[in-house]
């Protein structure tokens, strides 16, 4: 049985990751966690603020998980994204895949985060000391 965990959450609990991804048919688990970095282009970031179009975001994340399972024969997948204000060093996204062997779980994990960033309707605002910027909005 495949294990899938697709969620939009207020706070990402990384300690649950292993239970969500481990599987008797898996020899390898690969996880990526995106975190808030203190500096962007040498400017100090106070926080990142995330908002989402939740119903559509869940639907897109489900599609991405289904594509990955079909392509790499995964046993488990997690895709969780946080919303709200996140401070430096806090997790904002976690994606992970478990598979029989390690090449598949690495490739699948990279696909999950790259595709999430391209397609899932989530928006990030960088909060600096004196300004706020919607990331990627302008050329």
């Amino acid at each position, binding site marked *: 049985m495949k294990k899938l965990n697709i969620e939009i959450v207020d706070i990402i609990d990384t300690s649950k990751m292993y239970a969500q991804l481990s599987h008797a048919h898996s020899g390898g688990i690969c996880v990526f966690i995106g975190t808030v970095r203190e500096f962007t282009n040498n400017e100090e970031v106070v926080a990142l603020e995330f908002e989402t179009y939740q119903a*559509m975001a869940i639907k897109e994340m489900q599609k991405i998980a289904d594509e990955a399972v079909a392509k790499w024969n995964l046993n488990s997948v997690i895709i969780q994204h946080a919303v709200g204000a996140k401070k430096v060093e806090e997790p904002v996204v976690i994606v992970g895949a478990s598979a029989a062997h390690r090449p598949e779980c690495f490739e699948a994990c990279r696909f999950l985060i790259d595709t*999430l960033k391209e397609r899932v309707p989530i928006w990030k605002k960088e909060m600096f000391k004196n300004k706020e910027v919607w990331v990627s*909005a302008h050329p």
Partner: protein
Amino acid sequence: MNVLFFGIARDIVGTSELSISDIVKNPTVNDLKQYLISKYSNFSKLTSFAVAVNNEYAKDDVPLEQNDEIAIIPPVSGG
């Protein structure tokens, strides 16, 4: 026709939901984009923006129905 706005699109129109009545009859996704650009010039300054119909990305020629859930999707930046 109700339209939802997120992220910078919400900032541009100043609200998260707008009821639009003064648009062409039987509008398509493209008609809605052109309507928004003509009413709010800041839409033309965005890298791009997409329209979602019933929680799916919709191409320019997709017709919009009265009961569709329609949303404006500015450039996404999750992760």
